[in-house]
């Protein structure tokens, strides 16, 4: 999956890739909370780290798109792109919040 060259993809496929990576992260973040609830702290930590990797992948795609636009090349706008950005940003927020929550839980021995 990581070996895909973005330049070979259509704008639509790039949007799907953004959603895919953000989506994988979202699932892992929720799973991390669930694992913690079950007392599997190590697994919870691992999932959060993996979620960060997924978010990084999504963020990198997004960053490239912004760079492309900044260099004067037009990035095709679509409702799907807006939706993909929505996925990315909301999942980033989730990740930050869940990380803080888990830190609180750990500190309070919950």
């Amino acid at each position, binding site marked *: 999956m990581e070996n895909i060259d973005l330049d070979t993809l259509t704008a*639509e*496929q790039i949007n799907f*890739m953004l*959603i895919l990576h953000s*989506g*994988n992260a*979202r*699932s892992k973040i*929720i799973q991390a909370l669930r694992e913690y609830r079950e007392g599997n702290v190590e697994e919870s930590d691992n999932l959060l780290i993996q979620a960060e990797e997924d978010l990084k992948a999504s963020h990198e795609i997004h960053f490239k798109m912004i760079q492309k636009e900044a260099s004067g090349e037009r990035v095709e706008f679509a409702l*799907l792109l807006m939706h993909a950005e929505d996925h990315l940003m909301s999942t980033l927020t989730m990740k930050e919040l869940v990380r803080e929550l888990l830190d609180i839980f750990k500190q309070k021995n919950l």
Partner: protein
Amino acid sequence: MKRILLACSAGMSTSLLVTKMEQHVASINEDAKIWAVGQDQARKEMANADVVLIGPQMSFLKGDLQKEANKYGIKVDVIDMMAYGLADGKKAYEQAVKLMGE
């Protein structure tokens, strides 16, 4: 006729995938009903489906949804990463058909 339900958080990305899958189904002269819903409707809609494919953003719900789907004797799976990432209707359709056969 094969009835394939797709679900993702808002039902948006998967509706696009539905279009791609329908195009593929038409190209191979098969007949299938494929539709997409948001994650809240998935439980209700699966009563009318033969198989359920979900987006990666809700893969954490797979277990819960499969429990519900057991009532109807159908399978739930996460859409293949490559099929989803490349919005590949053919691959997603083949995955659905394979799940139905299992």
